[in-house]
Each structure stands twice: as C-alpha cells, then as structure tokens.
C-alpha cells in the first residue's frame, strides 16, 4: 500500500501574509517558462494566504548581463517588467526598484522613476560590497523617501564566491551605521552561509531587519534569530523556495512565538517598515501595530537563550 501523498490541506489558514522577498520573471529573462514561474508563485501564494508579494526583477537574470551585476539597460528592463506586473496585479503585487550602485546616476534616476510609479522599496544585489561609499547616495535617498533597502546577503562571507560581490551581516551593519535613518532588510537568513554569524553581526544594529526566506531550513535557525534580534526585526518571506517559507511559518507557530508577535512577523513589521499606504488592504486591522518610526529602532528586546526555547523548538 502506498504512503499518503498529501496531508489534509490547511489552505486559507494564514490569510494575512506579506512576502517581503519575492521575484518575478519576464519574457526577456531567457527562460521560455517565465510565465509558468509567475503563475506558480501566484498559485502557491494564494494557497498559503499571501496577500501581497513584494517583489523585484533582477535585470535579465543573467541572459544579457549577470544576475548580480545587471547592466543599466537590464536594470531598467527588469524594472519596467516589474512596473507592468504591478499594473496588471495591483492587489497582489508591490515592487522594489532594482539598481546597480556602480552606475550611480542611473541608480538614483531609477529609484526616482519607479518610486513615482509606486515602488515601495529598493533592491540591491551583489554588484558592490554593502559598505562601499558608492552605496551612500542610494542609502541617503532611501532614507529621505522612507524606502527600505532589501539587500542580498551571504551569511558569513569567508571569501569571495563566483558571480557576485556578496555582502554579509558585518558589511550591512557598517552601511546601516552610516545611515541610521535608513532601514536595511538583510535578505534571506536561510539563503546560504552561516546564519549564526549574521545574528552576532547585526544584533546591536537596530535599523537592520532580517527576512526569513531562503532554501535553508536548519532547525534552530528561527529560534536563534528570535533570540538574537526579537520578533520586531523579523520579516516573513519566501524568495525562490515557497515550500520553505510555508515550513518556517509553521515552525514559528511551534517555537513559542506568541500569536500577536507572530502577526508582526507575518505582516505587522512590514506595515511599520514600508512607506505609509504601501499595504492598504492591511490598514485598520484590529491587530495593526502601533505606528513607530523604524529609524528609532524596534521595540526593546530581551535576548532569550536558545535553551529557554528548547521545549517548543520545531
């Protein structure tokens, strides 16, 4: 007798989710299945209860310039695709404007162009180390406009890896320290590398928050993140593996996170970090978090030891 293939569906159980790290594809990205990929994200998102995908397009994803070093032409091409998707899916999609800081004037112009059309954040890849002065004008503009920066990260960069000039928690912490009025979202804590190093690197840098996405689903990672930075600095997200996003959502439920704090991770923190009006569908919720300037840092958090959470660990 075969093993049961699917457990009972829990569809609709988590109907108030904001995925702060999503990507969509387009026809010039070199994949014939680009539309199927986008459909699959919507299909899975609807099933999981994702109300809003906050997404970016990474140039041509390597088709005409490298994914992590997109040319200005491909940056604009990708942002145009993202703008078009926002127009086509105004209820389900918001956008980050992707820029390459090596082309400063173009990057700043792209931020202005796309913010004027509704972009709610800035996406930085691995085109230049995060603590490089070239990022300063972008961070200044982000702070001025109240746009959070989602920055690609490698958790503990022990050396340079091919195809990217990756940054880790220490690099992002240096950028954040120079720009205390900007909010930096450190991308995918489960996206590769040593996440424990990241916790130590950013614990005392309140304007760095963490998205929980990535294919990595190490047991202990969520507990340790919670213990190191607290729920007010954690943002739920999927990136390119939505099953790990759903798994982390389930795990958060069993590691001892109180329901009201889980709501912060699922959507409340995003409401606080992104510009006012970015998520009108969440406005007025009974559990909407009190407005607080993220530049003043999150609510006070008392680190908890991992062992304190042992009984409930996922």
């Amino acid at each position, binding site marked *: 007798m*075969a093993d049961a*293939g699917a457990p009972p569906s829990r569809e609709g159980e988590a109907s108030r989710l904001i995925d702060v790290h999503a990507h969509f594809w387009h026809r010039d990205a070199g994949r014939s299945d680009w539309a199927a*990929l986008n459909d699959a994200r919507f299909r899975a998102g609807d099933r999981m209860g994702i109300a809003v995908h906050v997404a970016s397009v990474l140039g041509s994803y390597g088709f005409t310039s490298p994914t992590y070093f997109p040319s200005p032409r491909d940056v604009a091409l990708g942002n145009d695709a993202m703008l078009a998707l926002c127009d086509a899916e105004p209820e389900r999609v918001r956008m980050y404007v992707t820029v390459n800081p090596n082309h400063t004037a173009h990057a700043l112009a792209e931020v202005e162009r796309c913010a004027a059309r509704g972009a709610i954040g800035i996406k930085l890849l691995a085109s230049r180390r995060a603590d490089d002065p070239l990022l300063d004008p972008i961070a200044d503009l982000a702070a001025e406009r109240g746009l959070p920066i989602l920055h690609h990260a490698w958790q503990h960069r022990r050396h340079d890896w091919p195809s990217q000039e990756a940054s880790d928690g220490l690099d992002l912490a240096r950028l954040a320290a120079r720009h205390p009025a900007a909010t930096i979202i450190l991308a995918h804590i489960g996206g590769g590398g040593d996440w424990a190093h990241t916790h130590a690197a950013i614990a005392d840098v309140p304007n760095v928050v963490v998205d929980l996405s990535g294919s990595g689903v190490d047991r202990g990672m969520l507990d340790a993140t919670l213990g190191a930075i607290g729920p007010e600095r954690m943002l739920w997200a999927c990136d*390119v593996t939505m099953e790990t996003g759903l798994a982390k959502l389930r795990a958060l439920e069993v590691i001892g996170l109180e329901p009201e704090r889980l709501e912060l991770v699922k959507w409340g923190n995003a409401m606080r970090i992104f510009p006012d009006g970015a998520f009108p569908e969440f406005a007025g919720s009974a559990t909407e978090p009190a407005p607080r300037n993220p530049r003043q840092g999150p609510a006070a958090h008392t680190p908890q030891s991992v062992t304190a959470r042992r009984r409930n660990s996922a």
Partner: protein
Amino acid sequence: MIDVNTLVGPYPFRYTPHPDPQILAGVLEREGTREAWVGHLPSAFWRDPSPGNTELYTMLLPFAGLFRPVPAVRPDWPRWEHALDAAVTAGAPAVRLYPQQWTLGPGDQRLAAITEACGDRGLVVMLTVRFEDLRQRGPLDVAGDLPAATVRHLARVNGRTRIIVTAAGRDMIEEVHWGLTPDEQSRLYWDISWIWGPPEDHLAKLYRSIGAGRFVFGTQWPLRLVQTPRANLELLPDDLAGMPLANPDDIARDAMDATRR
C-alpha cells in the same frame, strides 16, 4: 506517513537543538507521522560506527513500534558482515552508508560488496547526499556531496537490493534516473527532503517525469525543519495533489521478498 530520514545524536559542525529520541517522538505525534526510520547522526563522522549503532539500538528500545533503527555499516571496516547481521537481528529495515565521509569513491568495490550483502539479507541501502548546504559548511567539513556516479554504480550492482537516497535535489535525481535501465530505476527511491517546491516546482516536475512512486517521505530531522516536505506536498499543483508516494514498508518487504527469489 513514514519518515525514512531521521537521525538522533549531535551534529559535529553546528549546534542542533535536542536531537533526542523522546523529542522526535513528540514531533512525530505533533506532525501526524506514524513511524520513523532513525539513524545515529554522529556515526557518520566517527571512524568506527559500531559504538554508535550500539547506542542507537539502546536509545530506540523504549520506542518500539514508533522507531526503526537504521545503523551505519562501514564496508572497509573488519567484520562489517557481522554488523549487517546485527542490524537484521535488531529489526533494522535498512542500513546507512556514507561513502563521502569514508572516502569511498564511485566504483569502489567495497561499496558494491556491501550493497550485494544487503540484498542477501533483505536490508535496504540508504545513502545521504548531504547534511548541509554547500554554502554553509564549516572549513573542516570537506567530505563533499555524494556523487551521482556512486548511486548509479550501486543501483547496477544486482537485481534485488533496494536503495533509498536522501537529501538529493532535482539535478542529481534526474541524472541518476535517466542513467539507469527501467529495471534499475525500479529499485531506487528518493526522499523529498531537499527537493524544491514552487515557483520552480521541481517536485512537481519530477512527479510528472519519473512518477510520484519513486519518492518517499523524509525530513532529515534534527538538521532541518520537519515541516518542509509536508509543506512541499501541500503546495503541489492541483492535478498532482494527493498522489501517493512509495510506502517504505513496501520497499522493505520487497527487499526481504527478493532474498527468497
């Protein structure tokens, strides 16, 4: 649902919360999993896994009916045949081989010999592609991922040994599957613990190309979140939802039946 890919005991390269059988028992109950095949995690990294097997059998004794032991047996260690016999006596459905940790490369005849001997005894062979993502491994963790060539080699050893490969991704699964004859394919299974879901939909693509019946449920607890493979199944496209996976009990029974043919 049976979880074929669980382990107990600490991991040498990072802290892993409470990798204890009593915690695993609670996790199975919480997740609605009726049984687990359980290995001994430190044994993969010890020169001699024998003490780990003894510890495994002892640790699992109070959980008869819930856990089945899967000891590690090293084919380049003297008297490994006795360890296989002990596994049979202990009611093990399978044994774990770690070619990478033991530096036994593709084509190594000692691996072939133990695969043959497992077939003789009705034991399933379990292989592990990885314990951690390559990007996060510590500098002393130099074993590397299990090569597809090793799996192809062992799948061709004989006509009866069943093999379950854990922690493989789509690329490796396809490389091995399409490098085997249909008969060889029929004795090889893959756990779903490391296969990507949407939007890439690797699991769905594999269901469509090689069939859901080639896969078994596995989590790689305590290293990975136990919720992941279940989430993956829940996010399959509608036309694939609920398709049955292979039942590990059937695989073990087939392995035993093959000894009588």
